[in-house]
C-alpha cells in the first residue's frame, strides 16, 4: 500500500480516538467545558449531613443549579460546614432562603435543595445560609417514636 494512504488511514484512526475521548468526556461523564470559575461559593452549616457527599447536586425547584464542593467539620460548633458551588448565572438567591437536605426517591442519593425565601436582598459569594434543615434520618425517627420521645 502506498505510504500516503497508510498515513491518511492512521490519521483517521487517531482522529477517531480523539473523537471517542471527547464523547467520553462530554456525553458520558458530563464534563462541561465551563470551568469552576463560572461558579461562586456559598456555605451552609448542618447538624447532620447524613449521606451527603462531595460532587452531589444542589437544586432549586428541582433544577440543578450547582454542586457540593466539600464537606468539613467545624471544630468549634461541631457542625458540618458544606461548601456549595453555585452557577454564576443564579446570583439572586434571596438572603433568607433555606438549604434543605433531601433524598431523591426512596433509596436515591442525597442532595441539597434550596427553598426560596422572600427577602429582597440576595446572598453574596461567600455568604452562609441562615437557616438549614438537616438530613432526615429514618432510623433515628423510628427510634424516637418507639421510645416515646
Amino acid at each position, binding site marked *: 500500500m502506498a505510504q500516503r494512504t497508510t498515513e491518511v488511514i*492512521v490519521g483517521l*484512526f487517531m482522529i477517531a480516538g480523539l473523537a*471517542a*475521548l471527547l464523547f*467520553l468526556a462530554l456525553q*458520558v*461523564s*458530563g*464534563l462541561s467545558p465551563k470551568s469552576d470559575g463560572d461558579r461562586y461559593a456559598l456555605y451552609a452549616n448542618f447538624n447532620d449531613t447524613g449521606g451527603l457527599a462531595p460532587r452531589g447536586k444542589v437544586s432549586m425547584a428541582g433544577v440543578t443549579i450547582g454542586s457540593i464542593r466539600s464537606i468539613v467539620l467545624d471544630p468549634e460548633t461541631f457542625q458540618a460546614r458544606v461548601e456549595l458551588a453555585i452557577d454564576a448565572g443564579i446570583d439572586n438567591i434571596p438572603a433568607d432562603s433555606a438549604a434543605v437536605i433531601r433524598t431523591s426517591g426512596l433509596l436515591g442519593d442525597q442532595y441539597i435543595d434550596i427553598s426560596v425565601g422572600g427577602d429582597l436582598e440576595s446572598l453574596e459569594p461567600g455568604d452562609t445560609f441562615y437557616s438549614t434543615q438537616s438530613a432526615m434520618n429514618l432510623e433515628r425517627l423510628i427510634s424516637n417514636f418507639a421510645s416515646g420521645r
Partner: protein
Amino acid sequence: MIDRIAAFGRSGLDVVSSIGRAGRFLAGALAGVPRPSVGFPLLLRQLYFVGVLSLAIVVVSGLFIGMVLGLQGYTILSDYGSEAAIGQMIALTLVRELGPVVTALLFAGRAGSALTAEIGLMKATEQLSSMEMMGVDPLRRVIAPRLWAGFIAMPILAMIFSVVGVWGGMLVGVDWLGVFEGAFWGNMQNSVDFIDDVLNGIIKSVVFGFVCAWIAVYQGYDCVPTSAGISSATTKTVVYSSLAVLGLDFVLTAVMFGDF
C-alpha cells in the same frame, strides 16, 4: 528423585532468566528509538497493522457487549422499577472494566499473535540475523516500532470500544426497550466522573497495551526458530497476555477504585 529436583530447579532458573532477557530486551527496544525520519514511517505502518486492522473486531464486539449489557441491566433493574439506571450501569461497566479488559484480550488475540508469528518467522528465516550482519539493529528497526504501535493503539481502541458499547446500550435501552432518553444520559452523567472513571480506564488500557505488545514481540523474538517453536510462541503470547491482563486488572482496580 535427584533428577526431578534438578529439573525443577532448572525450569525455575529458565523462568527467571527469560524474565531477565525480556527486561533487557525491553530496555534495548525502548532506548533504541530510531531517527524520526526513519522511525516515523515504520511506526505508521505498524499502527496501521496493529490499530486500524483491529478496529473491526473491536467495534463489533463493543456493539454487542453494550447491547447485552443493556438487555441484562434492563431485566435486573426493571424488577426494582429503576430501568433508568441502566445508563450509569452500562457506562461505568464499560469505561472502568470491560472497555480496557476486553479490548486488551481481543488485541492479544488479533494483533499480539500476529506480531509474534511475524517476528518469529523473521527469526526462523534469519532475516533478523542478516539485519545484524548489515549493521542494522533489529531491536530498533523491527521491534521498537511494533512495541510503540501497540502502546499507542491500545488506548485508542479501548476508548472506541467504550463509545460503541455505550451507543449499543442506548440502542437497546432507549430505542428498543423504551427507557426515557433524558434519564438515560442524565443518570450516566451524574455518576460517571471524568478523572475517576474515564481517565483511570484509559490508564488501565495504556498499561494493558504496553504489556500485551511487550509479551507479543518478546515471544516472537525469543522463540525457537522452527515451525513448532513459532506455533508454541504464538500460543504463549495469547495465554500470557490474557493472564497478565486479567491479573493486572485486579491489581489496578484495587489501587484505583478500592477505598483503602
